């Protein structure tokens, strides 16, 4: 199954905005149509190649731009859309229609230009490329860069892409990454750190991972502290030695004065820690007691007139039962008493009795609160006494003094019979002092105790235990690390076998590919340099190392040399071109499409002509999208391939806000008439010249007229005169009647009378210069009249020529020469 490109549409991409981006290709006479586009520098030619490359690339990459961000020097993906596309509302996109030459199936793929990461290739492209893996876009600057500038590994990557095995290159790269990561995953550094720890904790006595040496050192270290038994007899491991030392330390702690000091210190800390809650309680109970006392005093004040409760009770009974008219106490009539009446007197008595009851309750609560306060003071006093005693034991005089002073104050307050109101100030000062004592003075005193008191006896043992613990930990860590290291190396070795197998297969595959291409590379080289000794090309490829090297040898394969040192620029480029073309030709037959962007810059005219031949013959059957800024190359390509399935377009201008202006090179008579009417002598004249060249070129080939353009080495120097003379010479050998018709015609006489044919040719200093539009019209009209001499006078079709019989004829079968002046009518 073979796919070819039917049409390409490019809009809003690089320099191409919304014109000159449409290409109709397809196929004609069962062959794909190719196209060559000529244009000067900076007119948007490469934009076509970039757009097509973008379309075919996996993730929208244009290689020479790369994937750089907005600040990239190269430009990156963001440079692909035309700068004005968004402003003008043009969606930047590329679309290609493919046609299957066997089934006539069509595939249409459209790819919008995406500058972000997510940019999937259309599935239709995958379908087309499935059996055509070789890279199909080549630019001039790729050639030398590939042969000379790239490192062997870069060459390998590039070559992998050219022959369509970039996935394998990708996998080989990943294999290398994996192996490097495994190799660098060594644990030596961590092991070394733990060895440093061993060295440090054995006081430089052991500097290697010597288990017995470490154990011996630990045993000797333990012996310094273990008096009653020899550690070798009871301890075989470091943990056992640590256990022995811990026991020994505990024993010493239990026995030592220092240990008791530690205990006492701890007790003092605990006692001091209990005092704050008692102090807070004291503050609380004092407040409650004071409140109760104040309530009691208030109640007492209110019931001051009710002290004779029993009397008032009796008086109330009397008043309720007998209803006297005067007060029984002072014999004053009720209306003259303070209360004013008997009833009011009864009410007053009731209120007074209630006040007395309230007074009793408050007095009882006051006693309770006072007892609580007393209990709290007792507890605080007890705590202060204990602190006092412990501080004396620890010889902390300031604590002893303060505790003693607070104890005295506490006792005074317990014994005081004063009202709490009177003691308020004293209480405030007391618990403030207590608070400062427990929160500041005691902690400071404990902190200021010399450390040796707590640890001077056990410190050496503790140091030894710490060393042994560190050594034990280091040993365990190192053993763990060594196990991991061994496992990693084992996996590394096993993965290495898998990777080696993949590399072996990839190596065989790439070597096969190179072997297939080598002879073709030399063939292409010889086509471009036929007169030179063709160097034997050595393509050294090593997939295992991801290396590709170029070497050439001239006389003996024993002496191979790098191309850059011995070949010219164009010869180097030829190597790259040969490799590229041979890869496309060999691997892309199911999609024979390639883009050649300005590939002949470094070649001289002779070599360009041979490249034309190469494209015409070696790449026959391939569909080529070619751009060039070299007009001679373009012209020669046109002369050589116009009769084949090639189209020739010319970019005649460029406007930034419109894009390239493209015109077809196939000039028609109507087109020329229009151009003459337009009046531009340069444009119309060049069109006339081109038409004449094309006509003579075709007729010379048709009549077997020998002209230098048939594989001559200087085709690009041909002029109209080069056609004119051979063609007329050939005409003279044909039918005498026909010869007379031609050579006696006015058109022939006018054209040959002046050197006009030759004058407006390539061979002149300025072959495109025409003096005036009238001259153009004159030449054109005479030339058209001249061409009609070669058409059938009956049907008007161009006469055909049978080279075997050396005779002219027309397929209409009628008389094709004009009626003779005599009776002769035909040959």
């Amino acid at each position, binding site marked *: 199954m073979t796919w070819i490109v039917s049409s390409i549409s490019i809009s809003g991409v690089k320099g191409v905005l919304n014109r000159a981006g449409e290409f109709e290709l397809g196929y004609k006479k069962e062959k794909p149509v190719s196209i060559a586009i000529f244009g000067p520098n900076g007119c948007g030619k490469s934009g076509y190649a970039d757009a097509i490359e973008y379309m075919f690339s996996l993730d929208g990459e244009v290689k020479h731009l790369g994937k750089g961000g907005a600040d990239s020097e190269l430009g990156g993906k963001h440079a692909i859309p035309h700068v004005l596309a968004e402003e003008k509302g043009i969606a930047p996109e590329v679309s290609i229609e493919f046609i299957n030459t066997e089934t006539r199936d069509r595939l249409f793929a459209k790819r919008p230009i995406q500058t972000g990461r997510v940019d999937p290739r259309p599935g239709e492209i995958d379908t087309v490329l499935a*059996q*055509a*893996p070789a890279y199909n876009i080549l630019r001039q600057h790729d050639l030398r860069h590939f042969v000379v500038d790239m490192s062997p590994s870069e060459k390998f990557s590039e070559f992998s892409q050219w*022959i*369509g*095995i*970039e*996935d*394998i290159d*990708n*996998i080989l*790269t*990943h*294999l*290398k*990454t*994996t192996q490097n*990561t*495994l190799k660098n*995953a060594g644990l030596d550094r961590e092991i070394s750190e733990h060895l440093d720890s061993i060295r440090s904790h054995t006081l430089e006595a052991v500097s290697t991972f010597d288990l017995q040496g470490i154990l011996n050192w630990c045993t000797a270290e333990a012996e310094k502290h273990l008096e009653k038994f020899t550690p070798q007899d009871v301890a075989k491991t470091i943990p056992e030695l640590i256990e022995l030392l811990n026991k020994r330390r505990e024993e010493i702690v239990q026995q030592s004065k220092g240990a008791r000091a530690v205990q006492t210190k701890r007790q003092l800390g605990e006692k001091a820690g209990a005092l704050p809650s008692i102090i807070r309680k004291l503050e609380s109970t004092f407040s409650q007691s004071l409140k109760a006392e104040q309530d009691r005093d208030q109640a007492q004040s209110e019931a001051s007139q009710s002290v004779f409760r029993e009397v008032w009770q009796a008086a109330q009974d009397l008043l309720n039962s007998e209803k006297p008219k005067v007060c029984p106490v002072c014999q004053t009539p009720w209306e003259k008493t303070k209360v004013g009446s008997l009833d009011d007197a009864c009410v007053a008595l009731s209120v007074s009795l209630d006040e007395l009851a309230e007074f009793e309750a408050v007095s009882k609560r006051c006693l309770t609160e006072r007892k609580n306060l007393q209990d709290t003071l007792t507890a605080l006093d007890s705590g202060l006494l204990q602190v006092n005693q412990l501080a004396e034991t620890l010889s902390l005089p300031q604590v002893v003094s303060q505790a003693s002073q607070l104890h005295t104050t506490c006792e005074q307050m317990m014994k005081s019979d004063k009202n709490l109101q009177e003691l308020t100030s004293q209480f405030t000062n007391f618990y403030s002092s207590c608070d400062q004592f427990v929160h500041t003075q005691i902690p400071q005193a404990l902190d200021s105790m010399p450390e040796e008191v707590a640890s001077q006896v056990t410190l050496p043992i503790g140091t030894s235990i710490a060393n042994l613990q560190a050594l034990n930990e280091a040993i365990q860590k190192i053993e*763990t690390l060594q*196990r*991991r290291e*061994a*496992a*990693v190396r*084992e*996996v*590394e070795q*096993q*993965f290495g*076998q*898998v990777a080696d*197998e*993949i590399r072996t*297969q*990839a190596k065989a*595959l790439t070597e*096969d*590919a190179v072997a*297939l291409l080598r002879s073709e590379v030399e063939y292409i080289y010889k086509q471009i340099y036929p007169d030179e000794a063709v160097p034997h090309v050595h393509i050294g490829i090593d997939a295992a190392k991801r290396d590709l090297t170029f070497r050439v040898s001239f006389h003996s394969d024993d002496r191979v040399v790098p191309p850059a040192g011995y070949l010219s620029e164009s010869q180097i480029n030829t190597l790259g071109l040969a490799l590229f073309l041979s890869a496309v*030709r*060999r*691997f*892309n*037959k*199911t999609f024979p499409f390639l883009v050649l962007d300005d590939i002949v810059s470094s070649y001289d005219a002779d070599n360009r002509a041979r490249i034309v031949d190469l494209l015409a013959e070696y790449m026959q059957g391939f569909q080529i999208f070619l751009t060039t800024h070299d007009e001679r190359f373009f012209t020669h390509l046109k002369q050589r391939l116009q009769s084949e399935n090639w189209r020739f377009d010319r970019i005649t201008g460029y406007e930034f806000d419109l894009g390239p202006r493209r015109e077809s090179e196939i000039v028609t008579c109507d087109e020329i008439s229009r151009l003459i009417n337009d009046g531009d002598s340069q444009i119309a004249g060049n069109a006339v010249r081109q038409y004449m060249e094309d006509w003579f070129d075709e007729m010379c080939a048709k009549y077997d007229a020998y002209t230098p353009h048939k594989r001559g080495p200087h085709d690009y120097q041909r002029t109209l005169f080069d056609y004119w003379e051979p063609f007329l010479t050939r005409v003279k050998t044909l039918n005498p009647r026909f010869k007379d018709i031609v050579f006696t015609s006015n058109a022939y006489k006018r054209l040959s009378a002046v050197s006009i044919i030759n004058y407006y040719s390539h061979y002149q200093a300025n072959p495109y210069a025409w003096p005036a539009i009238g001259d153009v019209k004159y030449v054109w009209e005479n030339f058209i009249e001249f061409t009609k001499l070669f058409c059938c006078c009956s049907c008007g079709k161009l006469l055909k020529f049978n080279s075997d019989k050396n005779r002219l004829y027309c397929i209409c079968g009628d008389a094709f020469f004009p009626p003779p002046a005599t009776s002769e009518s035909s040959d």
Partner: protein
Amino acid sequence: MSEQSSELFQASELLRKLFDEALVDSNQFDQEIVQITRLHLDSASIHSKAGSNLAKDLLDIAEKRATGGES
């Protein structure tokens, strides 16, 4: 050149043959490692960090083997 020749140079075909034929010999290749390699490298679109990711998985296998865990 025939279509078969083109197919010869397809990476996927090369890998398929490798993983289905050449690398299945358990006497020669550790199958656990073969499988983890296939997981990372034998796919239509290979992750851009497949090499690093594969290395991490291989180190995990080594770690499990070192600690006696099932791998």
